[in-house]
């Protein structure tokens, strides 16, 4: 602005004034402003000032029980895991500053891939910098022009983005609907490559997929199968390999996608496979090639954690107890849950609408409990959910405390 001149520097009031590339976000900006204007604490701007353990933190100044972290096996503060990370930080430095295919593959990345191969008893393992990139990379790379991807409509954003990034035809089917999936597979033109993408546990409602039946159908039509086991690793299945292992169909899965940011307790993603040509992925998968590899401390903590998860039978049993106790308690109080039976370590509490969902979320936070508020469009059927993810380190008493908090908050907000 030039001083002393009555004319503005730029033309006034042009057509479409106030409109720019951000105008497309106006609806979500207004929804958010309206929610915050009601006085509710911002559900998407929580700060953890201190983390005391896998299940406790100081959030927005309050001592809080964590019930929304996906830290299923509580490995984040495991002494062996921490020690491995410290050692790698001292020995290999703070970062690799390079791609896996150039200067970014350290001994620790190979050790981490060895641990994954042993964990899943599979021939190949490829570590990505995040779970998101694992889905993005594998899906967009293996399904190309003229191929078909048949996927569940409730698939995670990373799966959809992998589809969007590739050039395959994308064909969704109704959630967990075996018949709808089969119809679509049957109609695919002869000779086209087919990839079926499924998840073991669907994170929004915490329900599992009928993988055995679905994979049998996929194989009948000659499709390759990719299963995202992000929310089941370390917990579901006799060896913690996931829902496919639990249902006895892991050997028919061509690609398992997983993450280090849940049960493993750090960050990173991976794909394991028995495909004889799998190693070529390292050269053709862009989200693997064109990004820096994980820091040495991260792969060291991941490898240590994965090896410990192989022997996590007792923790798995306790986590199931926690899930059943929370699910049963909440059902008894009259809350509506995402599943009628506990199927995973996620218990989703269905809220009547976003306003009461946000009020309930805040009431729980004031009680000293953190859960995830999930809202459309991330949720199926436009639901507002309070998503609880349990940890093997939650004690029986803590789960009882959590139930008491839900009861008081639910009554205060008028949901039960």
């Amino acid at each position, binding site marked *: 602005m030039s001083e002393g001149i009555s004319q503005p520097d730029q033309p006034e009031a042009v057509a479409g004034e106030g409109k720019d590339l951000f105008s497309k976000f106006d609806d979500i900006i207004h929804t958010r402003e309206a929610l915050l204007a009601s006085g509710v604490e911002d559900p998407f701007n929580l700060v953890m000032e201190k983390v005391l353990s896998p299940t406790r933190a100081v959030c927005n100044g309050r001592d809080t029980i964590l019930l929304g972290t996906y830290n299923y096996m509580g490995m984040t503060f495991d002494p062996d895991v921490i020690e491995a990370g410290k050692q790698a930080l001292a020995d290999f430095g703070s970062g690799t500053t390079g791609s896996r295919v150039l200067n970014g593959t350290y001994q620790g990345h190979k050790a981490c891939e060895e641990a994954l191969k042993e964990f899943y008893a599979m021939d190949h393992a490829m570590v990505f910098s995040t779970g998101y990139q694992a889905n993005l990379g594998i899906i967009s790379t293996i399904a190309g022009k003229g191929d078909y991807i048949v996927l569940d409509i409730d698939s995670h954003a990373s799966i959809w983005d992998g589809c969007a990034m590739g050039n395959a*035809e*994308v064909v969704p089917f109704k959630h967990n609907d075996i018949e709808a999936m089969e119809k679509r597979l049957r109609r695919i033109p002869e000779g086209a490559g087919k990839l079926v993408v499924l998840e073991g546990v669907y994170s929004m409602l915490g329900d599992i997929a009928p993988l055995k039946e679905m994979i049998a159908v996929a194989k009948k039509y000659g499709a390759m199968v990719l299963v995202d086991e992000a929310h089941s690793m370390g917990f579901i299945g006799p060896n913690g390999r996931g829902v496919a292992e639990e249902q006895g169909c892991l050997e028919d899965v061509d690609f398992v996608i997983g993450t280090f940011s849940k049960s493993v307790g750090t960050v990173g993603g991976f794909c394991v496979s028995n495909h004889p040509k799998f190693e070529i992925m390292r050269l053709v998968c862009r989200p693997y090639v064109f990004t820096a590899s994980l820091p040495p401390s991260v792969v060291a903590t991941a490898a240590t954690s994965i090896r410990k998860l192989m022997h996590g039978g007792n923790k798995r049993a306790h986590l199931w107890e926690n899930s059943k106790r929370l699910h049963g308690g909440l059902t008894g109080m009259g809350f509506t849950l995402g599943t009628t039976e506990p199927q995973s370590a996620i218990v989703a509490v269905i809220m009547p609408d976003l306003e009461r969902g946000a009020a309930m979320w805040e009431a729980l936070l004031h009680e000293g409990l953190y859960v995830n508020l999930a809202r459309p469009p991330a949720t199926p059927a436009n639901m507002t959910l309070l998503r609880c993810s349990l940890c093997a380190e939650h004690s029986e008493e803590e789960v009882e405390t959590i139930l008491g908090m839900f009861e008081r908050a639910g009554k205060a907000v008028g949901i039960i």
Partner: protein
Amino acid sequence: MDRSEVDSTIRSLIEPFNKKGVELTDATSFAGDLEFDSLTVMDFVAAIEDKFDIIISMNQQAEIENYGQLVDAVCKLQGGA
């Protein structure tokens, strides 16, 4: 099926999804006029796919904005199948 038969078949399929009884012309848009959200689109597309035994992939759906384009696309897909 010729275009008019495809048209009348789709008209009957769209009825349960056309809650406001919006009048259908070739220019009627799914997002704007019919206010279909993503879930409605999925169910509606599934109904058409089942009726005509075709696949309308999401890539193809992205090109279909109005009713007339849908009728044209279905005519083409059942011909080419």
